[in-house]
């Protein structure tokens, strides 16, 4: 499981000075924080989008992680110092921590079961967060979570950021097999599993949403910056979706974010 430790709530915009580093000879990484904060993530997404919009011929592809934007550039062919200077000059054009997120993002409403046999660690996660079950359910279904990054498995989102109470550690012992579509919680994040996975995160919800649909027209439905809101459904309703919805959407509804 990817590490996302040291999550801090921050009320003021970061004073972190972005770092530009080479990654092997494979590209350049621009990092907006030492810890996985919400604004570092926003800055990384916004910066990646801004550089992509400039269409540099040296950039083969780009991605964003929890706190960084990565530009895949062949450093055997292009000098790192030159690319670094150019990225620094884009960095200097504005305060990226205050940048708004790019356009073209989507809001997903994803039906999920919380608790019971399909999500057996909901109660214990609520307890670890110091919340009643009612309050925990309200948090998980009323917070609009952002796709911080996709990774670990294809199309798999790390969603954030829940309130401070949800800064619950990973379990020391792995749960050997949590199924695809599971919502698992730790360190103020929710991960929605793309496939069956052993994990130290707690299994708090279960959806039928397929994060990776290799045979469909949209193999990767989610993108960093998209938002997800979970809708509480019954286990019976989830079974009905599993039996009748065959396109991988799991009954989720996608709307464009203005």
């Amino acid at each position: 499981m990817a590490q996302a430790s040291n999550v801090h709530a921050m009320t003021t915009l970061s004073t972190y000075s972005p770092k530009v580093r080479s990654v092997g000879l494979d590209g350049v990484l621009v990092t907006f924080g030492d810890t996985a904060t919400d604004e570092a993530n926003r800055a990384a997404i916004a910066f990646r989008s801004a550089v992509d919009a400039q269409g540099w011929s040296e950039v083969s592809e780009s991605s964003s992680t929890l706190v960084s934007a990565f530009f895949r550039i062949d450093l055997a062919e292009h000098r790192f110092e030159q690319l670094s200077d150019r990225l620094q000059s884009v960095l200097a054009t504005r305060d990226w921590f205050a940048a708004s997120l790019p356009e073209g993002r989507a809001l997903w409403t994803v039906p999920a079961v919380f608790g019971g046999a399909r999500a057996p660690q909901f109660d214990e996660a609520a307890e670890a967060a110091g919340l009643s079950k009612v309050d925990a359910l309200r948090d998980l279904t009323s917070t609009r979570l952002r796709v911080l990054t996709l990774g670990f498995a294809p199309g798999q989102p790390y969603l954030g950021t829940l309130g401070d109470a949800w800064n619950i550690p990973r379990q020391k012992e792995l749960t050997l097999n949590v199924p695809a579509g599971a919502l698992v919680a730790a360190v103020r994040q929710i991960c929605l599993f793309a496939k069956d996975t052993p994990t130290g995160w707690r299994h708090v919800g279960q959806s039928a949403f397929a994060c990776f649909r290799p045979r469909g027209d949209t193999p990767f439905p989610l993108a960093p910056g998209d938002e997800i809101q979970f809708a509480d459904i019954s286990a019976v309703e989830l079974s009905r979706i599993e039996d009748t919805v065959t396109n991988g959407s799991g009954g989720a509804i996608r709307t464009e974010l203005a």
Partner: protein
Amino acid sequence: MAALHVRQAGPGVAVQDLGRTGFLSKGLTRGGAVDRLAVHEGAALLRQNPDLAVLEMVGTGGTFEATEDMRIALTGAEMTAHIDGAAVAWNASHALAKSSVLNIGPTRTGTYGYLHVGGGFDTKLMLGSRATHQSCGLGDLVTADDTLQVGADRGGDAGLTLPRDTRFDGGSIRIVPSMQTSDFAQETRESFEATTFRRDPRANRQGIRMDSDGDGFATPKALSIVSEVIVPGDIQITGDGTPFVLMAESQTTGGYPRIGTVLSCDLPRVAQAPAGAALRFQFVSLEEGAAIEARARAAWAALPKAVTPLVRDPATLQDLLSYQLIGGVVSATDAPLDKG
């Protein structure tokens, strides 16, 4: 359409190519053949494009029957190879006649062997590539009774060979500093360079564990590192200080710090090192690394010029070890009957 019918296949046989790019932001790594040089060698032997799909074989190959006349090439880790029972040379191209049976047996040196066909394997494109990426559900291992379609071959010679490369028994690996190298103490980096590692048997297409005696190479900063992008060749240091070289099917991001990154041109040497082989890592600057990599690419591109006809290759002699090659040497200038 020509095809290879699979009569029997080893446990680690899969279609690969140079992988799929453009999906890093979606959490999907490039994948593809772990020994990219072998892919280029096969393409040079068959005088075709290195983008064509090949079969990657770990440990042992399989038994394949040609449905039409075709050309094949064998590269990478040397395995025993026979066509209709007659031994054929590795690192070479051969004609495989319709209904002939190609048998590829256990590895002799190295780890990953490759079977190339004229025209390439024409399996289904998945996200723009034919590379099998099992853990992501893209493609499956090749098994008995599969039929592997072969693309149209523009034709050309068979019976060609390339000089044998030295990358199959470990050796010295050049690495460049990467984003977290400076998070490791200077003495840790020096000790990393001074250590002779053994390739652990625990290795796969995701990563290769490096064993050494001693305390390992941990950094106290590891605990506070946020999960960050991975590129092929990254050497991650796990919590107990053990290095893993991350290979073609690694994840796109990871939470363990990277002490450095293996140059792409040296990654085939890491991939091919058999279990137990000795490996050492040597830092070069980014600038030196770029120059080394550029030279290697030029050499890979020039491979077609290094191809020569296959003549009297000892590897084609059946049961080589039964020949008496040392004793009883007959000299052309020394008439033995004159003695005594």
